[in-house]
């Protein structure tokens, strides 16, 4: 069975953007803090619109936030 892994750099990007808190990021992209926590931990894969909103918040491309790897 092929195991798909989606990794993200949200935690690193938050700290690089003046140590943005999970709540601040959640408020800016219009989700709850729990959703940001779940995305950061890799427990939840966001929808494309939400992924784009997160990337735009940090001012980077989607690939710089989310990486997809075939295991």
């Amino acid at each position, binding site marked *: 069975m092929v195991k798909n892994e989606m990794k993200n750099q949200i*935690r690193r990007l938050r700290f690089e953007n003046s140590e943005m808190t999970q709540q601040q990021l959640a*408020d800016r992209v219009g989700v709850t803090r*729990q*959703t940001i926590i779940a995305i950061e931990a890799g427990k939840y894969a966001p929808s494309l619109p939400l992924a784009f909103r997160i990337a735009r918040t940090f001012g980077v491309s989607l690939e710089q936030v989310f990486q997809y790897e075939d295991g």
Partner: protein
Amino acid sequence: MNRTQKGAWCILIVSLFLILFGILLFTEIVILKNLFTSLHRFIALLLFSFMVPLFIFLRKKQSRAEVESDERDRLIIKRAILVSFVSVWVLLAAVCIIPRFIVGYTGSIPVWVLSVINFAIFLIAMFIYSTAILIQYGWGGKDGEK
């Protein structure tokens, strides 16, 4: 804890309380033939006095800009509705089968029992719905501050 989690906790507490209160009432009034006592009144009053702090807890936001619900909340709610819907069907099937063993094929039950059964199924479905939401959120503990 977000609004969906808070709502689920409220439903869980209220449904559990009503289930326990219903079992107590059934035991006292139907089995032991006691009338509505002051203990029952006290428990009912206790339930209603819990409502105000519960609603305040429900309305409190994590931040000013906190959204009511997001895509993950909606996904979790959708799964919880599915689980509770399945549980309703399982309970209805059980309700159709179990009385045959208790009162027999030609036996009869009072009409009020049907109302009690319907209400009990509703409460159990609500209990399962809220539990399903909380399980998906990891009971709120795993989603802690990082």
